[in-house]
């Protein structure tokens, strides 16, 4: 599986996302530009200009009509995917670390950074899926994280709950309507930041990645840890693959320490683990900086990773990837 190198960004990638059909990849980087690419050949479809600072996050709605971004210029913006038109800008006191649409695309969530005088929070807006419509400036919900700031967050199935990962290694479950804290569970090592939270396709479970060098598979409903994937490097991202029961983990030596170590040392590899057996299956090398985000094609035919080195690498899985089965899985499949 020879990867396609997307070299359109000038600085470190922060997030990459597939749309629901998997034909477009959106990438954001610290160079202030949002890029859209065709996933099958790596051709650039377009860019979205307007942000005044490093971008931290991007998400696309389920119909690939609207695109949300957030960054260090303290704004969260909504774009029309097709035209690149800026539809709405929400201004905040601090930067936006994470945006995510609800499963139906009618709500948008943003995680705001904590800064002196401002607590970290999770804000929710109602979204009109029509690109011509005026979007509201009114928050439908605001959750203030006074214990430990949220670093990542997302909507559960039917947007019933909001799940957030925190700087102190815990995961919180909030009521999706009232914002009430339902449950808080120590999922990772204390004070080891949760760096990523990605959903299984049906959002009944999710995977978290943490600086404590592990990724965990957690049940949405109870926050019970189902599986744990230990590695030997701090993790920045973790994704669940559809079709095959794998998870992909990405990370590497912290960006600030990288210059002092060789690429081999940095462990800049995407690691594949079997989701159920928790065993490492393989690694994909290529980046020469830590992997900041890994995203999986919604149909499970490939994945892409965005690195601190400024490249997006798009991989299409080969046949052996789909053919590989553990003996017990084969037995199960033949039943």
């Amino acid at each position, binding site marked *: 599986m020879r990867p396609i190198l997307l070299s359109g960004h000038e600085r470190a990638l922060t997030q990459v996302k597939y749309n*629901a059909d998997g034909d477009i990849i959106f990438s954001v980087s610290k160079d202030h530009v949002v890029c859209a690419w065709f996933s099958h050949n790596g051709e650039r479809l377009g860019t979205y200009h307007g942000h005044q600072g490093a971008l931290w996050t991007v998400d696309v709605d389920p119909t690939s009509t609207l695109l949300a971004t957030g960054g260090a210029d303290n704004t969260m913006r909504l774009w029309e995917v097709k035209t690149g038109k800026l539809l709405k800008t929400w201004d905040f006191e601090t930067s936006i670390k994470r945006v995510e649409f609800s499963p139906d695309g009618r709500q948008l969530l943003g995680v705001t950074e904590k800064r002196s005088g401002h607590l970290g929070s999770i804000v929710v807006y109602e979204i009109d899926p029509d690109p011509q419509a005026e979007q509201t400036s009114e928050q439908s919900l605001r959750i203030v994280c006074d214990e430990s700031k949220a670093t990542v967050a997302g909507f559960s199935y039917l947007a019933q709950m909001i799940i957030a990962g925190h700087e102190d290694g815990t995961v919180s479950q909030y009521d999706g309507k009232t914002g009430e804290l339902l449950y808080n569970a120590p999922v990772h090592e204390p004070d080891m930041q949760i760096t990523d939270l990605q959903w299984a396709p049906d959002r009944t479970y999710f995977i978290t990645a943490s600086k404590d060098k592990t990724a965990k598979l957690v049940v949405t409903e109870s926050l019970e840890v189902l599986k744990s994937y230990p590695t030997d490097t701090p993790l920045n991202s973790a994704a669940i693959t559809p079709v095959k029961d794998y998870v992909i983990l990405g990370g590497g030596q912290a960006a600030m320490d990288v210059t002092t170590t060789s690429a081999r040392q940095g462990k800049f590899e995407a690691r594949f683990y079997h989701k159920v057996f928790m065993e490492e299956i393989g690694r994909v090398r290529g980046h020469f900086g830590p992997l900041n985000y890994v995203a999986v094609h919604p149909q499970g035919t490939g994945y892409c990773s965005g690195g601190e080195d400024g490249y997006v690498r798009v991989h299409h899985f080969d046949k052996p990837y789909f053919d590989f089965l*553990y*003996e017990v899985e084969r037995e199960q499949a033949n039943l």
Partner: protein
Amino acid sequence: MAPSYENLPLEDEEFDESQIDFTDIEEQYQVRLDEGLDAFVVIDGLPKVPDDSKAKLVKFVLRKLNSVGKVKEDGVFMPLNDETGQTEGFAFVEYNAPNEAIAAVKQLNGTPLDRRHTMAVNKLTDIDRYGREGRIDEEYHEPHIEPFHEKEHLRSWLGDPEGRDQIAMYRGEKVGVFWNNKEDTPEPVVDRDNWTEAFIQWSPQGTYLTSMHAQGVQLWGGNAWSRQKRFAHPGVNLVDFSPYENYLTTWSHRPLQVDENHPVPSLSLEEDGKNYIIWDIATGKPIRSFATLDVPTSTDAEGNPVKKKMQWPTFKWSSDDKYVARMTQGQSISVYELPRMNLLDKSSIKVEGVMDFEWAPATPKRESIRTYEQLFCYWTPELGSNPAKVGLMSIPSKEIVRTRNLFNVSDAKLHWQSDAAYVCVKVDRHSKSKKSLATNLEIFRVREKGVPVEVVDSIKDTVINFAWEPKGNRFVLITTGEIPAGAAVPPKTAISFFAPEKLKGGAPGNFRHVRTVDKVNKNAIYWSPKGRFVCVATIGSQDSMNLDFWDLSFDKAKEDKDETKDLMANLQHMDQADHYGVTDIEWDPTGRYVVTVASSFRHTMENGYHLYDFKGTLLREEHIDRFKQFLWRPRPPTLLSKEEQAEIRKNLRNYSKVFDEQDLAKKNTANREIIEARKRLLEEWLAWRESQIEMLKEMGAEIELNGGKVQQEEDGDVEEVEEIVEEIIEETEEVVG
């Protein structure tokens, strides 16, 4: 069992101090006020003389007393017994200063005066303190003898039915002992947090595991890994065992401070100011202590002082624990006899200029020598017009068995073969201009009559490493060319193999070169402890860290003849391996496995270990954060006789069949277990998924059940997409015209 000294804080917060009887502690640590009597000593054990000889005796005693300080004028008071008219045999002496009195106690106590009288010198205050009425019981009490406690079997690990070896691993703050399970996870025996403070070390026969603490050294062993012994030596840095584990040397760079205000268990004033202590392991008591010797400062070519490198072990043991010796560089070698630790013949052996010495690692069996002897080898550099010398000395006779003169010597290293059959002196020789270096090997054949010396001078380069085959007669060395000054890249090295010629009757003849592998980066040689196999590696390098496995007695097909047939070697390269960041390599005591370690003592990159078999096949690798030490537990020498060993070797095939079956059965069960576990995991997972999907269905979560895709109304406006795929099959370039 707390794995450290019992100075743990009392956890009970609510206790009444008045309940505790402190009198014993108060007594022990009683602060002594200056009584003004500190300059007084009491001398005991003097002869009883009549009044008229008293002056003579005082004069005699004064001569001794003044050797350590100045006795006050009329400072000696020797009372007379009124009844007998004779002196009482004791005297009170006042020195000018208290420290002189202390010096007198330290140095003069126990000085013999004549054949019958030995002088006891004590401080007056001590006599008062310990000897005052009531402090000494008038009646004799039998000392209380502790009832006999059965000790744990210290060598029980040797009885493992599978004959596995144990490993001690030190990683993070944890120290654990494990069974080696080849490719499987090592099976833990014991694992404790903060077992040691600095490092761990096995005793040479594997009986004890040594842990290092600020307060001293502790030995652990037995089935329960309980503490066997402890040796209080505050600030201890290094330890060294005698070969048979009878004695232990501890060393601290800081001189010991033992006095009334700093009491140390089992140490006395004798040990004050000393750096080395030699202990008897069985009793746990110190036998003798020594201070560090000052090494004469030397200067290099530019006149800068050369940084002194401490030789460790400083006290070198003879192979049978009978003698221990220390060298005073450039002057002499002091040999001490055990178990009393007295200087052999009461004097050091003068060896002018001595630079280094090394005991024979086994009791030598020289031809036609029937008496007991131990040998050591030493060398002296060129002194004035005298040539450099290498000598072999026999102990206890101190007879020089063999010497050899050498010229143009820059440095020499002594390498004994493990059976003490050979000693190879690696002599670095400089040319007349002192610009280039070359190495000669002077090999002493210790067991042959007259100890003939064979010289290997065919080596043109500098030898940086040399190693004998254990229990064998072959050796490997690594040479390197000239090092260009200021070169960033270390020069390439070459590995050379040597073996003796095959003589009639199978006796080893002269050493001959077998093969050289050049243009490599290797710098370290690790022989299997059983000989035959050798691993040559690159250690501590930034860019290459591979290791090669060689077999020196490879079974070759009969018809395959070449020029090496008359040598006692048949070299074969078996495998090459690569371990990033390797810092240490160790063979297991049976010669079956090799472990390579990347220790966090040296760097923090990819710490962990690799386990290979003797052929160089990687069995297992494990990355462990802050991995520090991997130590195979040594084994004591075998109890089987030569015949029994030969018998086993002959029937090896029968044994190996059994072992192969065991391995296979084990593998099968292990595989079955893994498969069972996976099956269980998969079933659990599928059942859980089922329940979740059911839940979503009940809630009507259509989008989620559809994998996150929002259904859009079909509006019949189907777009046709045509995709053209171009594939370049071949590209050729032609020059036109």
